[in-house]
């Protein structure tokens, strides 16, 4: 809050300088965790989004220049609300990129009230599907990931007793609900569900509780630095079972952990080897610019910006202003989008559906797909 108050005031200070733009120019906003314990993710997401902005400007798809205003949320709802207020009320952007389930839930009503489209490509809390017409998701939510994951581990891997360590926020609570719903039907059992506060870094006691429950698999529903600490300390404190998580394990810091070897995690299926032009260009340019392969979050945020560019270009062609309301109408009118990795169509509630792939972290921190599960 200390810094929050500061940010409340500070973020509004750029207004004066930022307004001297040409009338045709288009601006969108982005809410990323650029500092704090979640900064690694902000980096990944913004690099993807920025590449899409650069591509759009290079291709002159839009009349005028596209620019993206990045606001730092540190992944917390509080900072997210301050940032969305600025983007909506002061900057008047029609379209905002959102990340983190907690942030998404907090900002959605504000965006909806102002008829601004907010799109999530990172948070996977299942209730993100229910945030109203102005909130879209391009990432399959955790319910898809959990529902794909549970039958796989129970049936294919014969890991029936699952212990859940989850962060006490909308994401963690959402995932817990999914496990409670999905496990009994698949023949599994939730033998322990332990929640930890967002800031906790101590897991020795939690490890003892988990061991006591004698699970076959430990699912960690958290993110960022906390997940890194949890993996290391669970292993340090005698938890030898398979570890698992959702897409957050694709964090390079986790892949690099020796303790994470053998862990399973789900991601949406992204086919970067696909032959379509959009994917090829993204893969090549991203590698050229950042010197490493893109991660699923990078791709999602590239795709969000790309969805915006496609919709806005169409609106401009029709002579309509690029407002949140028109963007929403145009999305409903568009059957599908050519995005990196796939041709994607939105469901009526603003979510997308994609096959889920299950990855295993192998030697040297390389994740390799071990199964693909179609979801419906």
């Amino acid at each position, binding site marked *: 809050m200390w810094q929050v108050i500061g940010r409340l005031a500070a973020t509004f200070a750029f207004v004066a300088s930022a307004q001297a733009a040409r009338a045709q120019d288009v601006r969108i906003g982005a809410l990323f965790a650029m500092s704090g314990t979640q900064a690694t993710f902000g980096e990944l997401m913004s690099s993807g989004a920025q590449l899409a902005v650069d591509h759009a400007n290079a291709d002159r798809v839009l009349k005028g220049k596209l620019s993206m205003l990045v606001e730092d949320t540190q992944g917390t709802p509080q900072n997210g609300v301050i940032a969305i207020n600025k983007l909506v009320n002061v900057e008047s952007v029609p379209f905002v990129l959102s990340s983190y389930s907690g942030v998404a839930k907090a900002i959605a009503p504000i965006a909806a009230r102002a008829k601004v489209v907010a799109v999530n490509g990172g948070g996977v809390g299942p209730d993100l599907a229910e945030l109203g017409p102005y909130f879209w998701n391009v990432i399959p939510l955790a319910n898809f990931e959990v529902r794909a994951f549970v039958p796989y581990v129970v049936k294919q891997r014969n890991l029936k007793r699952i212990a859940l360590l989850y962060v006490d926020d909308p994401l963690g609570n959402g995932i817990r609900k999914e496990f409670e719903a999905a496990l009994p039907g698949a023949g599994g059992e939730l033998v322990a569900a332990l929640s930890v506060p967002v800031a*906790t870094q101590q897991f*020795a*006691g939690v490890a*003892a509780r988990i061991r*006591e429950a004698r699970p076959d698999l430990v699912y960690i529903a958290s993110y960022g630095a906390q997940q890194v600490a949890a993996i*290391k300390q669970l*292993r340090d404190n*005698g938890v030898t079972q398979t570890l698992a998580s959702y897409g957050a394990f694709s964090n390079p810091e986790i892949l690099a952990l020796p303790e994470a070897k053998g862990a399973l995690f789900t991601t949406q299926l992204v086919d970067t080897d696909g032959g379509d032009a959009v994917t090829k260009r993204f893969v090549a340019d991203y590698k050229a610019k950042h010197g490493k392969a893109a991660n699923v979050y990078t791709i999602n945020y590239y795709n969000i910006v790309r969805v915006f560019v496609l919709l806005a270009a169409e609106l401009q062609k029709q002579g309509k202003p690029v407002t949140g309301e028109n963007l929403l109408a145009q999305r409903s009118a568009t059957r599908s989008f050519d995005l990196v990795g796939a041709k994607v169509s939105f469901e009526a509630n603003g979510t997308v559906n994609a096959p889920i792939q299950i990855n295993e972290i192998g030697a040297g921190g390389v994740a390799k797909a071990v199964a693909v599960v179609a979801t419906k």
Partner: protein
Amino acid sequence: MLLLQLLVNGLQTGALYALTAAGFSLIFGTTRVFHLAHGSAFVIAAYVFYSLAARAGAHWSLALLGAAAAAVLFGVLLDRVVYAPIRRHEGSFFTLFIASLGSAIVVQNVVGIAFGRSVVTVSTPLSRSAEVLPGVFVAPLAGVAIGCALVCFWLLQHFLGTTQRGVALRALAENAQLVRAYGLHPARLSTLAFALGSLLVVPAAALTVATSGANPAMGNHVMLISLAATIVGGVGSLRGAACAGLLLGMAENLALWRLEPQWSEAVTFVVLLGFILVRPTGFFGRAHAH
């Protein structure tokens, strides 16, 4: 077995809490400075240890020495540069308290800018537990922690009980006038108290970096625990602070037996509030709360 495991964990946590709390208690008891920046000394020691051991690749003993030097330097500098001028003007406890709070905020953010706000760890094979009894896992570092605490307390007891300066330090806690009358210099003794008190956080800081990692904001937690332990143990009583530190570490871990982890900090402070309301002088307290 869970209970036994939690007890062992509690012993490890409690040993470290006892050390930091004794440091805070020593400083508060002898100088009456409500030294909130005690947590900052912890953070500084932790990051210096991390820089030397993990980044520069120094031997752990060298890194420990560096961390100790940094913590002591910080404590002494704060006493000389910040607290001493305020005390000269007979500033109230509150003035000192705010100055200390300000210092803590500065340290937390300087460290945050320098090292980032994420978690840093020094990896060591010693943090890996082995099963000593069925269902009870103990890491070598737990033994190191408990051993460290015992050695430190023995040394401290020896110093305060037998050396001239140590005895003077204890006397200062009782009566500053008396000490002056015996020709001892309170300012110099106060420096000694800060040096010793800050030194006591070093083992805990280094061990924390090796087990769960450190971040710049953890000074807050250390400060809250030290303060709670000092009051629960009774102001002016090192033994009280140490026992209370141990107790709070145990309580925090044993709470996991039945409660979710998010309640553990609240458990500590319910104990603290209970003591303040029912027995403000703490376990071993002599000083009056008024």
